[in-house]
């Protein structure tokens, strides 16, 4: 804390509450004044966040320890009968654990997919070419466009009856039957005599998420790539580095901090994602992520307590994962940066 010398003339000494008295008083230091102004400025923002975010979250935490159904929640007092039933129900149900592992798969797949595709895109669009500006603009379309609209387009395009993908897939790739991308839990593929079951609907949802968010990664990575000094790469080239070595030893270390940041951001956002899965599959066919499950508990069973408990567990899992990340990996990245 910096404190101004107390002898400094106070040009705008706060006059309110302090009528000029003969009594000797300590002048208000600059730091104190700044503290007061800062608090005054931050109060409105804080109040808004308190009302629409913090109080609801705390209330939810209280709800998880009560038997709460949507119909009787209005008449209920804040502190009702405490119970741990919601948590035992959540941890005891098989559905929750499979849902949690689906969420993890979905999150890791989409995060990795969007960052890898974004990185490839940033590398391809790094050097200028005719029409680059146009392509860069159009590449942001999936990210900017409303999720309901693009999900609807995907639904129609992937439809087994009138979808363009199945039509062309049948013609060009020789699919025998139309694939129901969004409602097939597992699809059997035989390759070289081996049979695999692939979770088709989950992969489709991951592909959608990758497609929708790679522009986000692309923007960050392109900005960072263009800030890499030319001299570095030139020196490497003079020393005989091939393009792939140049990428591995020059560019990638420069990009690593951005990639780490993107991974964390995308992980958090995708982990809590509701819209995309709900709109594409409604949570069916093996895509039952926790966020959609919470919604179902809320709207189909009106079981507020159980819904809140699952959401809270989801938030806790996320916090733990982030904690692990920041303890073990964040320092390393900072050193590299």
């Amino acid at each position: 804390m910096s404190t101004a010398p107390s002898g400094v003339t106070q040009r705008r000494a706060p006059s309110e509450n302090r009528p000029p008295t003969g009594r000797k008083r300590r002048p208000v230091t600059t730091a104190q004044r700044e503290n007061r102004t800062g608090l005054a400025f931050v109060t409105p923002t804080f109040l808004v966040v308190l009302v629409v975010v913090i109080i609801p979250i705390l209330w939810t935490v209280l709800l998880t320890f009560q038997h709460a159904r949507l119909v009787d929640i209005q008449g209920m007092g804040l502190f009702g009968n405490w119970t741990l039933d919601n948590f035992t129900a959540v941890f005891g149900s098989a559905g929750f654990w499979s849902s949690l592992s689906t969420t993890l798969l979905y999150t890791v797949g989409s995060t990795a997919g969007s960052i890898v595709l974004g990185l490839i895109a940033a590398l391809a669009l790094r050097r200028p070419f005719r029409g680059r500006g146009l392509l860069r603009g159009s590449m942001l379309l999936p990210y900017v466009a409303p999720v309901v609209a693009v999900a609807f387009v995907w639904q129609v395009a992937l439809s087994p009856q009138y979808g363009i993908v199945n039509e062309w897939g049948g013609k060009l790739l020789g699919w025998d039957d139309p694939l129901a991308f969004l409602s097939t839990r597992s699809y059997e593929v035989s390759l070289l005599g081996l049979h695999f079951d692939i979770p088709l609907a989950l992969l489709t949802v991951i592909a959608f998420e990758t497609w929708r968010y790679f522009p986000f990664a692309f923007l960050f990575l392109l900005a960072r790539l263009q800030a890499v000094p030319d001299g570095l790469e030139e020196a490497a080239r003079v020393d005989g580095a091939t393009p792939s070595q140049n990428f591995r030893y020059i560019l990638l270390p420069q990009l690593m901090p951005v990639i780490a940041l993107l991974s964390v951001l995308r992980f958090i956002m995708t982990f809590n994602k509701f819209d995309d899965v709900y709109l594409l599959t409604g949570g069916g066919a093996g895509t039952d992520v926790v966020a959609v499950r919470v919604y179902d508990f809320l709207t189909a069973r009106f079981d507020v307590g159980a819904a809140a408990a699952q959401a809270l567990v989801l938030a806790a899992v996320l916090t733990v994962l982030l904690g692990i990340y920041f303890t073990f990996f964040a320092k390393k990245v900072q050193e590299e940066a």
Partner: protein
Amino acid sequence: MTRTQFEERFFGFARWVTIAFLAAITIVPFYYMLLLSVKPIDALLLDPGSLWVAAKDFTLDTYRSVLRPTSEGGQGFLRMLLNSAAVALGTVLLTLAAAVPGAYAISRLRFFGSRHVSTVFLAVYLFPSTLLAVPLFVMFAKLGLSGNLMGLAIVYIAQTVPVSIYMMRNYFTTIPRSIEEAAALDGCSRLQTVRKVVLPLALPSLMATGLYVFMIAWNEFLFALLFLAASPDKWTVSLGLQQLAGGIEVSKTVLMAGSVVLTIPVVLLFFAAERLLTEGLTSGADKS
């Protein structure tokens, strides 16, 4: 051929393949959306794989049908567009009003807790929005604000304030302190400095933040679903499209026209502002 030559040729080729692939995956879905929106449903069912529309099939009836009010047999998207616009604009104004003072304080002033406030705000994103939805839903039902567009805008603040503070804080820190000190020397109070000096300089950031908030509010779906699903005359476009897409009464090509109508405002706004936002305004302001 050396390894370098080989790699240069290989990546030179791969680069164009990648560019073509990226163009295809980003443009084709939107082209497909436009294409289907000007076709009658029979044409789609007859030839689902077609990538163009025959002149005899071309129609704008889909748009007429989707925009007409429900009383005249349409889908009433015009009304939903107005609802969406009202909610989105309301959210922008409320968010900026709530976030500007906070962002300024965090970027400029040292006060009790100043270093932790922004972390607290950003921690909001750790919680799934479904979690926030329950208590907000009950609170607004009690206040009689559920099924109300203004209520929805207030709820959206929860989603937009943290990121707005983050965006604007980063910009405020780039404004040179000396400009503010000059204003203070000329007799401006802190509030006047913010209003007359900082905000005009931060205009690009305010617009970028406002635009981002507008996009979030326009595209938002979950809260609209929870709060407005029961009152169809308050539906936003996103909600209306989803509600109709689930049924079988409305033909897919008409809904495709609805998707175009939903997408165009954000996309236009985004491209119109993209250039404007890249111009830095502070350059030269601090030269002595």
